[in-house]
């Protein structure tokens, strides 16, 4: 669309280009300021392009971890209560080899982040841009270095006294347990890539058994709710009432036809759900850490209700704790601040909890 010759000096070059752009789409967009680019250009690449100068120790990382990360990821990064575990499944041999053995022997029940991630930049970048879960981009550069170091320490990649920095990250990269575990040698990246599986479109008397290899277990029939309520109530088919066992009666008897015809006339119209405490709790992921009657990471709502029964100050105390976080009340795992919740939503959910969370 436009060209700048190398003969033009650097300063006037950008000027010349800017004016040429203006001929293409005049007055559309504007040149970004250096500060604007710096504010948003936060990505960090595997060759460490984009990594800001700084450092953080394992010790500092543990401190940050326990206050801001452990509630979701577990004290040692091994919890699967909320997200897939970060740490686990790697060995000192993996650190040497750069390939995680458990990915081949499949002895680990779950594939953790550290078993998979090949590049330390990926950890740094994601913690920096997206963590903590409820307050993304709130960590300082030092805290990001420190937490990255602490995760690698928990995975026995880095020693307890290590200080991770932009200077030594390339060395740390050479210790990543699965640094040699990725391949891009496949046809599934480019749109015109070569497919790895070649099938044939046989049309008549095709080989192979038409054997049923797998069916949904009866126990899972109604796990997704009553499917009769998830299909249109008229048309060629109806949803199956999965709250009942499968029928063995052949289709098409007069009795069934009448039943179907009647069902067609009686369309139930569901009332919209009121915005109650349960809805607020569900929408805001409270249920990830608290069960109604069971402890998950935090206490059961029913236990909280029991503890505060008859306590006149309960509403204000709980409201404060939801808003600003708390620690020590129910064990070692702190509850992070939920300051992103609207005050009225906190009020709704607190009242609902104290009323027994039903």
């Amino acid at each position, binding site marked *: *669309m436009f060209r700048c010759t190398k003969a033009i000096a650097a300063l006037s070059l950008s000027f010349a*280009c800017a004016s040429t752009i203006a001929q293409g789409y005049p007055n559309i967009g504007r040149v970004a300021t250096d500060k604007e680019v710096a504010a948003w250009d936060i990505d960090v690449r595997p060759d460490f392009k984009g990594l800001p100068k700084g450092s953080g120790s394992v010790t500092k990382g543990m401190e940050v971890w326990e206050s801001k990360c452990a509630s979701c990821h577990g004290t040692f990064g091994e919890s699967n209560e909320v997200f897939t575990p970060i740490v686990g499944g790697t060995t000192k041999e993996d650190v040497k080899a750069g390939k995680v053995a458990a990915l081949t022997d499949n002895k680990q029940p779950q594939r953790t982040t550290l078993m998979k991630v090949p590049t330390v930049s990926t950890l740094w970048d994601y913690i920096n841009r997206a963590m903590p879960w409820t307050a993304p981009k709130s960590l300082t550069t030092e805290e990001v270095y420190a937490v990255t170091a602490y995760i690698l320490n928990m995975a026995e990649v880095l020693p307890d006294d290590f200080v991770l920095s932009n200077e030594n990250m390339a060395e740390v990269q050479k210790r990543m347990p699965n640094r040699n575990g990725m391949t891009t040698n496949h046809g599934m990246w480019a*749109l015109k890539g070569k497919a790895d*599986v070649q099938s044939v479109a046989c049309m008549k008397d095709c080989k192979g058994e038409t054997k049923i290899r797998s069916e949904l277990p009866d126990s899972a029939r109604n796990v997704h*709710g009553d499917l009769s309520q998830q*299909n249109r109530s008229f048309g060629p088919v109806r949803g199956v009432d999965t709250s009942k066992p499968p029928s063995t009666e052949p289709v098409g008897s007069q009795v069934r036809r009448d039943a179907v015809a009647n069902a067609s006339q009686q369309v139930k119209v569901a009332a919209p759900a009121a915005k109650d405490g349960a809805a607020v709790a569900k929408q805001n992921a409270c249920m990830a850490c608290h069960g109604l009657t069971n402890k998950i990471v935090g206490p059961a709502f029913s236990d909280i209700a029991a503890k505060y029964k008859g306590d006149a100050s309960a509403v204000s105390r709980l409201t404060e704790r939801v808003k600003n976080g708390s620690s020590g009340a129910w064990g070692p795992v702190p509850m992070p601040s939920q300051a992103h919740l609207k005050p009225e939503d906190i009020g709704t959910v607190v009242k609902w909890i104290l009323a027994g969370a039903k």
Partner: protein
Amino acid sequence: MKDDVKKRGRILRAPENFLDANLALEITEKGLNEERRGFLRKSFLAASAALASGSALAQAAASAATDGDVNILTLPEHSTTLGKPVAANPYGVPSRFETNLLRRESPGLTRVNAASVSFTPLQGLFGIITPSGLHFERHHQGWHDIDPGRHRFMVNGLVKNPKVYTMDDLMRLPSVSRIHFIECGANTAMEWGNVAVPAVQYSHGMLSCSEFTGVPLSVLLDDCGYDRKAAKFILAEGADGSGMTRTIAIEHALDDVIVAWGMNGEMLRPENGYPLRLVVPGVQGVSWVKWLRRIEVGDKPYATKDEAIHYIDAMPNGSYRQYTSIQECKSVITTPSAGQRLLDKGFYNITGLAWSGRGKIKRVDVSVDGGKNWRAARLETPVLSKCLTRFNIDWVWDGSPVVMQSRAVDESGYVQPKINELRAVRGTKSIYHNNAIQSWKLDVSGEVSNVQVY
């Protein structure tokens, strides 16, 4: 008024202003009832004559049981009363009888529903366009409804001029509108091992198709003067908490990628990236970055979290395939499908959807004997590149148990594989990119269920 009635002619004109303003407003707002009908009778004799069918209605109801269907013999309320006025629902909503078809979560799939998926109810949709309100959602850190007046889009990196655009700027540029499917790389993931879910909504519902409107990314890259020699990749970045980032090869970025604000004639819905998202035809949904805030032009891939920890394909030798992006040719029968029940034997139109990230659908075959014999289905137009294609085939069910399958072939000649053919290459630890032939078992009872057959 008396004179008017006496005039000859079959149609009598209502006199001007025969309803006073208050009554007209009341009827508009509340419809007709007996009291308001009374007013009308007094107001205009001819009109009241047409409404005096009350006694006839009662007679029809009495004889309905023996003489025919009550729905025919008895005039319903909607035939005998004034309906709602125009724009009573200024932004339309579906009929109150359509509330069964909703985006739904799959229980137990994730622990935190701000980083989860809602599935499109494919079992009840027609044609190829997904209604915007039913377009599946996948969020990595919850969704926001972002003020378009404050949203900014930046292009930086290997460009002569890093630029900032407002929505005003972008929407002034020459735009295109194209229909494409979007499918999550993990669609059908739960079925890699065994049958796990009871309905097509949960097996295939991370799939939607819309007309997207926006400016080709190539226009913006040109506008900023991207480095034609050094540029090899772009990084797309979202403005939400997760700051979703994905690497896209420059050839694709310059080809058919769109910086989109429109979806099915309206602005994007907030759950789908309002006010700006990337459209990356043929490629898994995670690359279609929502709430798009930035494109960086670079010379190397970025290995971001969703390119190094998730959306990587586990191979049997313990290695992972990175940057697996393409959604290969796939199809599924949506009616009848698992979780549905056929009412009777006889004629049915088997229908479903086929799609390919590598171009147009060339053919869809359907088998009703578990893959022994196949017939080519009719393809509904339009048949577009990297877009859903609707197929149909006639079928008469004799009431015996059958297993039905569909198999799509795309214009590259690729044939949708069986699950065992996929597993032979990729093993069983993979999660993503399961494009296997789907089998539905129809029982003598008319109930359809999810099975694996090969």
